[in-house]
C-alpha cells in the first residue's frame, strides 16, 4: 500500500477500533451504545447550537494542532503551545481593550498580529536556547508554560482584574471582536474558523512550496546533512519554533477575539496540550490536522449530550486516548491491516 493511503487509513482505522473498544466499555457500564453514540452525534451535529459549539471547539484545536504539527515537521517538539497561546492572548487582551478608536479593519489584524508576535517571541526563547546551548526544547517549553500560566493568573487576579467573580481582564474593544457568523442563544460562532483554515492552507504552502519550508524540513530530517548542504541549523530551529509559536498565539487570538472577548483565568483550558494529540492524529499534515481537530471538537461537544443519558464525559477521553495510542503505535494498526489483506 502506498504511503499516502496509509497516512489516511491509519487514523481512520484507529478511530474505528477506538469506537469498537468504547462500545464494549459502554456495555460494561450498563448503557446502550447505540443510544450513547446517538446522543454523541446529536450533541455535536443535531442542532444549530450543537454545530456552532462543535465549530467553536474545533477552531483553537486546529490552530494548536498546526502549531505542534509544524514543529514536528521541523524536528522540534513544541510542548509549549499552551504557554505561547496564553501569552499571546494575554498581551493581545491588554492592548485590545484600548483599540476602541480604531476601525475593525485595522484593529482586528493588529490584535492578531500582536498575539502571533508574542507567541512567536515566547516560543523563540526555547528555540534560541536550543540553538545556542543545546537545552532541549521539551524541557524549556514546559518551564515556559508554567511561567506563562502563573504570570497570566497573576495578571487577571492583580493588575488586569475587573469585577468580581471569575478572574478576568477587561473586555476588548468591539472593533477587535471577530465578526459573528452564527448566533444561537448565548452562543456565538465567530469567523475564527475561517482564520484557522487559512492558517492550515498557509502552513501547507509554507512547508511544501517555499525555500524556508524546505530548509526547516531539511533541518528536521537531518540537521547534519542540512548543515552540510549550507543550511544554518541554529537559525532554522529558532525560526521553526517562532512559526510554531505564532500559530499557538493565533489560537489564543481566536479564543480572545471570537469566544471570550476578554482574557479569562483558564482561557487556554489545556488546548495547547491537545494540539500535541491532534498533530499526532493528523499525521502532522495540515489537512489531516483540520480533520483531527474536528473529530476531537465534535467528540467533546457531543460528550456533553452523552452525559444526559448517563454516560460520563470520560468516555470521550477514553476514545481520544485509544485513538492517540493507536496512531502513535501505528505499527499495530498496520499489522492488523496487512494481516487482513493477507487473509483475504
Amino acid at each position, binding site marked *: 500500500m502506498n504511503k499516502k493511503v496509509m497516512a489516511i487509513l491509519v487514523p481512520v482505522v484507529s478511530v474505528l477500533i477506538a469506537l469498537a473498544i468504547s462500545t464494549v466499555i459502554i456495555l460494561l457500564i450498563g448503557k446502550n451504545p447505540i443510544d450513547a453514540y446517538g446522543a454523541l452525534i446529536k450533541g455535536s451535529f443535531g442542532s444549530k447550537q450543537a454545530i456552532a459549539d462543535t465549530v467553536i471547539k474545533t477552531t483553537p484545536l486546529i490552530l494548536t494542532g498546526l502549531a505542534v504539527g509544524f514543529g514536528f515537521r521541523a524536528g522540534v517538539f513544541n510542548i509549549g503551545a499552551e504557554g505561547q497561546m496564553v501569552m499571546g492572548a494575554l498581551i493581545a487582551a491588554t492592548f485590545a481593550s484600548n483599540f476602541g478608536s480604531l476601525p475593525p479593519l485595522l484593529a482586528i489584524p493588529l490584535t492578531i498580529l500582536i498575539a502571533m508576535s508574542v507567541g512567536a517571541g515566547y516560543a523563540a526563547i526555547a528555540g534560541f536556547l536550543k540553538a545556542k546551548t543545546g537545552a532541549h526544547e521539551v524541557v524549556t517549553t514546559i518551564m515556559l508554560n508554567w511561567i506563562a500560566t502563573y504570570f497570566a493568573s497573576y495578571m487577571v*487576579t492583580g493588575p488586569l482584574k475587573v469585577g468580581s467573580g*471569575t478572574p478576568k481582564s477587561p473586555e476588548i474593544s468591539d472593533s477587535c471582536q471577530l465578526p459573528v457568523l452564527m448566533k444561537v442563544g448565548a452562543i456565538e460562532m465567530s469567523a475564527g474558523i475561517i482564520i484557522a483554515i487559512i492558517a492550515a492552507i498557509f502552513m501547507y504552502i509554507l512547508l511544501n512550496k517555499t525555500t524556508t519550508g524546505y530548509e526547516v524540513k531539511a533541518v528536521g530530517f537531518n540537521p547534519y546533512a542540512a548543515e552540510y548542504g549550507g543550511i544554518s541549523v541554529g537559525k532554522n530551529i529558532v525560526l521553526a519554533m517562532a512559526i510554531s509559536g505564532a500559530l499557538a498565539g493565533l489560537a489564543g487570538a481566536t479564543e480572545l477575539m471570537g469566544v471570550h472577548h476578554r482574557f479569562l*483565568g483558564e482561557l487556554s483550558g489545556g488546548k495547547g496540550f491537545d494540539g500535541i494529540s491532534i498533530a499526532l492524529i493528523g499525521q502532522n499534515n495540515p489537512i489531516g490536522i483540520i480533520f483531527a481537530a474536528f473529530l476531537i471538537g465534535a467528540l467533546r461537544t457531543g460528550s456533553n449530550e452523552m452525559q444526559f443519558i448517563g454516560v*460520563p464525559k470520560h468516555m470521550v477521553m477514553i476514545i481520544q486516548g485509544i485513538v492517540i495510542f493507536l496512531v502513535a503505535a501505528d505499527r499495530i494498526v498496520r499489522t492488523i491491516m496487512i494481516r487482513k489483506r493477507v487473509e483475504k
Partner: protein
Amino acid sequence: MKKVLIVLLAVLFVVSAFSFKAIMVTDTGGLGDKSFNDGTWAGIQRAVKELGVEAKVIQSYEQADYISNLSKAAEEVQKEPDGGIVYAVGFMMTDALFQVAQQYPDVYFAGIDIAPPSEAVPPNVITFLFKEQESAFLVGYLAAATTRVGKVGFIGGIPIPPVERFRYGFETGVKVYNDLHGTNVTIIKGYTNHFSDPKKGKDLALSQFAEGVDIIFHASGACGNGVIEAAKEKMIALVGSEDLSKVIEYAFEKGGYFAMGVDVDQDYMAPGVVLASAMKGVDTASYMGVMWAYNGEWTPGVHTLGLAENGVRMSPMKYTKGLVSNRTLAELEYLVTMIKGGTLVVPDTEESLNSFRTPKIEFPF
C-alpha cells in the same frame, strides 16, 4: 392480575405525569472533588429522594463549556412540563450563569458560591453564599485552645473571597480566645496559589510545622489533602503507630501535630489527626434551592447562609472530642449561640478584621 396491572399503570401515570428536573452543571473540578461539586450533588440527591424530582449532572471539560452546558441544561429543563432548575457550581461560573440565565427567563437558575457581578439579579436566579468566617471562627477558637506551643498555622488556596473569609474567621477565633484567656497564640499564614495540587499543600504544611506550629487549618481545596497528609505523617512518626486509640492517647498526653479540615467533614481523612473541620453546607443550599423552585417559594437574589441558617458549622469531632476539655466545648457551644443571636459578629472583610475588638463575653459557667 388485572387489578395489579391497573394499579401499576396508575402508579406509572402518576409518576410520569409529574416531572420536575434539577440539572447540575459542574465546574472543571467535576464530581469527586470531595468539596462543593460533590456537596451540591449530595443536596440534589436528597431532593430526588424526598421530593421525587429528577436529577442530572453535566460535568464541564473546560471553561468554554460553561455557557454551552448551562444552555443545554436550560433547554432540557424547558422540555419538562413542570419545568425545573439549573445549578451552576463554583464561583468560576459566575459570568456564564448570568449570561445564560438572561436567555432563559422561564427557567430557574441557582448558583453555589456565586456573588452576582451587579446589583440587579434577574428574577429567575438565586445564588448562595456562605458565612465561611463563622465556622472558621469556631475552629480558630478551638485551635487556640488546643495548641500546646502557642502557634497555629493557616494555609489558603488562591486568595479568593471564600478562602479569605475562612481566614478572617480563623484569625478572629484565635484573637477572641487570646483576649478571653489572656494567652498569646500567634498565627503563621501561607497560600498554595492552587486548589488542586496536594503536593503544594504538603510542602507548605511541612514548612509551617518546621516553623513550630502544631495545628494547621487549611482552606485550599484538594491542596488540603496534602496538608492533612503532612500532619498525619508527622503524628505517626511521633506515635509510632497509625492506630486511632494510640494516636488519641498520645495526643491527650503530649499533644502532637494536627490539621483542620474545610468545606466538608474531613475528620475521617486522618482520624485523630484532623482535629475538626469548618464545614460549609453546600448540600443544604442545593437542597433548599430545588425545594423552593419545586414548591413555588422562589425568592430570587442572594442568600447568605451562616450558623443561624445551618449553612455552616463545625464538624462534630467524631474522633477527637476526647482531646478537648469540656470547658472549651461548652465555651464553643456558647459562642455558637452568640453568633446565631447576632451578639457576636465575625468579620468578613479585611477592614472589619483589622478593626475587630473582642466584645465583652462572660460565660455563664
